[in-house]
């Protein structure tokens, strides 16, 4: 009950989008628009080696030949790719050596967002409390990465992508683009050409990463897009849990976010990847503004018995186009996808997953919960496929949709392709609204309508919340309630 009370209080305290503030920070931009020169500019700005520039240019040339996909159940005016900044960074003389050198304005932003960038501040908490190493990405660049030293002692490399290209080129060259090839899709291709920063993680064989790693993405600059690239490699027997959070200011213009996340898992490795996505969803009344979130996320379970788990809580963005996928190549590898997608106002979300079973005895599990309210649309789109060699493949999929209000829509579009006689696929889906009986029951026992809705919705998404690391589960629970604020009554 305490959680419900907290939720209600949070809802009351926060009228609208909590993270919608803008920050006046001295920033530098690349000229607006996209061309080969811009790609060269970004590469030069980051002082990249020739091979990286060539890779980007190759991607840019391919992008020119691709067409923007239109199969998703989302509609938006045509994006003018020449009317956006592809590079925006807070002005600094040199890369900051320590937190003390970081612009205090910038630190204030993260403080306001509740992201612990000061290691001591984190340590000052309760003894034994779990700690998080954070890579903070502000518009196009990573501003700071915490706990690097401590992680290095365990052999874990956690740094920004730009730094990885400089310091660990052999790893980057080996793995970058090996999961999501340059020309994989329109948005991934665009990202490959102009990606500015992101996080890089390498966990060596047999190492269990001593703390949770996380990246916090913040879009701040006007008319800019964010194109980050994340690469996580878990070597044989390694384990890492990674969290990702995102917010952006409230603006009337739409902003583009086209990220690529690649996960590589070798034998017996395990990666747990959690996302709490809270980009600005646009004005709830008019639908104006908000982030276009076009993201490609994919995990490649190359090694035998490797395991990947995607957990996502999607509450923000005007448009979400995102399908975190698992390529289950290694024998006995397994993939999990747990998702909550909440849409309200005029939001549109087309999200789901792909489980591609290539190896024998591979297992996958999908639990997707969609909640639509207001005038929003939420679509689950998923693919489960088993290759002829994937003998003994096993999948279980459950997708449930909850509708709140007369004007929203919820769709379920699963694709199932079974190509051998020894796999078992199960899929079930339901679409309902909040039960009047249950609401009445709660209200009879003294809960207000808002409280009752929060309680029932939290029950509906419980299966997914349980998969999140504890602190984030509490956050996510609040977020779900806030996102649905004003949807009933």
């Amino acid at each position: 009950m305490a959680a419900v009370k907290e939720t209600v209080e949070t809802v009351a305290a926060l009228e609208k989008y909590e993270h919608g503030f803008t920050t006046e920070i001295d920033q530098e931009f690349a000229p607006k628009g996209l061309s080969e020169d811009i790609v060269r500019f970004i590469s030069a700005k980051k002082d990249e080696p020739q091979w990286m520039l060539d890779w980007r240019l190759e991607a840019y040339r391919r992008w020119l030949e691709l067409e923007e996909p239109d199969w998703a159940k989302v509609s938006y005016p045509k994006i003018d790719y020449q009317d956006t900044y592809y590079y925006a960074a807070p002005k600094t003389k040199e890369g900051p050596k320590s937190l003390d050198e970081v612009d205090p304005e910038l630190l204030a932003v993260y403080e306001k967002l509740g992201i612990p960038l000061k290691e001591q501040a984190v340590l000052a908490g309760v003894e034994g409390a779990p700690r998080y190493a954070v890579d903070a990405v502000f518009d196009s660049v990573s501003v700071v990465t915490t706990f690097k030293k401590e992680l290095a002692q365990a052999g874990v490399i956690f740094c920004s992508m730009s730094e990885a290209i400089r310091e660990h080129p052999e790893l980057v060259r080996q793995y970058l683009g090996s999961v999501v090839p340059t020309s994989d899709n329109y948005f991934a291709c665009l990202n490959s050409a102009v990606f500015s920063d992101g996080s890089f993680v390498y966990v060596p064989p047999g190492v269990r990463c001593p703390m949770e790693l996380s990246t916090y993405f913040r879009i701040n600059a006007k008319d800019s897009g964010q194109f980050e690239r994340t690469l996580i490699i878990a070597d044989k027997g390694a384990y890492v849990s990674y969290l990702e959070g995102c917010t952006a200011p409230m603006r009337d213009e739409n902003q583009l976010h086209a990220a690529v996340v690649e996960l590589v898992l070798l034998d017996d490795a395990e990666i747990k990847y959690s996302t709490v996505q809270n980009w600005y969803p646009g004005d709830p009344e008019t639908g104006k503004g908000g982030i276009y979130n076009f993201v490609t996320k994919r995990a490649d379970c190359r090694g035998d018995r490797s395991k990947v788990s995607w957990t996502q809580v999607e509450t923000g963005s005007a448009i979400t186009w995102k399908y975190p996928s698992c390529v289950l190549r290694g024998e006995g590898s397994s993939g999990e996808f747990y998702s909550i997608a909440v849409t309200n106002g005029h939001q549109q979300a087309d999200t789901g997953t792909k489980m591609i079973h290539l190896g024998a005895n591979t297992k996958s599990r999908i639990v997707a919960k969609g909640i639509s309210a207001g005038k929003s649309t939420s679509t689950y789109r998923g693919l489960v496929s088993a290759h002829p060699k994937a003998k003994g493949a096993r999948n279980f999929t459950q997708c449930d949709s909850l509708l709140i209000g007369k004007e929203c829509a919820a769709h379920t579009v699963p694709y199932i392709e079974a190509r051998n006689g020894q796999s078992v696929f199960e899929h079930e889906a339901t679409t309902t609204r909040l039960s009047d009986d249950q609401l009445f029951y709660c209200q009879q026992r003294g809960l207000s309508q808002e409280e009752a809705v929060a309680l029932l919705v939290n029950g509906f998404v419980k299966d997914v919340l349980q998969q999140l690391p504890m602190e984030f589960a509490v956050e996510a629970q609040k977020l779900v309630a806030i996102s649905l604020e004003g949807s009933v009554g």
Partner: protein
Amino acid sequence: MTLALKTSASTTLPSRRDEDWRWTDLYGLLRTLPAPSPRIAETLQPGGPFKGLAKAELAIANGRHNWWPGADSKTVEFFEHQSPDNPYAPEELPMAAMAAEQALEPPVSIIQFNGDDVALLRLVTEATETSHHARVGVVVKTGVSATLLESYEGKGGRYLSNTLIEIIVEDGASLERVVIAEDAEEGVGVSTAIVRIAPGAKFAQTVLTSGARRQRIETRVNHPGAQAEARLDGAYLLDAQRHADLTTVVTHAGVEGVTSQLTKGMVTDQARGVFQGRIVVSPGADQTDARMGHHALILSEKAEIDAKPELLIFADDVSCAHGNTIGALDEDALFYAEQRGIPQAEAKAMLTVAFVGEVVDRIEHEGAREIAAAWVARKLGSV
């Protein structure tokens, strides 16, 4: 100029690039529409899989109206329509649009039920490397309870038989449609049924098919809600290199509609089964109750099943669900049967018949149910 464009648009075969045809690529197989099929020389004799279940029979051979006995019946009327319109857009329903344009002898044959009765509709093909189109209208008048027993009987090879069936079930009427499709192994069969049901009406259908080189049996139901009920069942039993695609689209436009759907499949050898089911609940179509189930067995190493059960919901007070399972026969059940002295092949057949039996049991017309049960048993080799 306009005519030329129109002709080319409606003779283009759908390919896997068309989302609704991603698993049934006609263009990839045939490239172009084969030349028109010749007339079958002899008049057909009454028959087909439902032989003896009805006096009224309409037989269409190679796309031409061929046989038409029982025309003097008061309860079932047959007639022709010479200048029907073509409301189908090639982008949306390419094969239906093609049939509406290319069916000529006659442009439409119509079966009208004025009273409770049963009629046979036979679509017979005897062709090799040619194509033909037929268009049939079925009208069930207000309050009438009718049964349509439809069969696809294909002989020859590499033909394309394309049929469009437009069904109207008027207020408070009911229609049960039972389809048995037996195309030639190398044939290509496409059948598109566009069903409009009125308030309070009932439409129930069961499609049984053994597939073809490529085969698609599609049903689109415009459901008004309003206490109308739709049941759409099907079973595909495929061996060798056969392919069958059961596609359904049910659009609920008004409040209080009921749809239930059960499709079962069995594939073996290198066969490929496809199920695409879409339930659309339009804005305001509250209190819709829609259930869809698709369950299939893969009995060989190289067979394949593709499924896409979709729910598109635009109203909040609804109860919709779908379930989809694909797997092998239950090892425990097989072991149990074998332990009791039943040879493996027989045990497999027994279990498969029981699995598909659920679909057959839902057929209401007794005679058709018996024929369907025997057909299934024969296909599964248990008889």
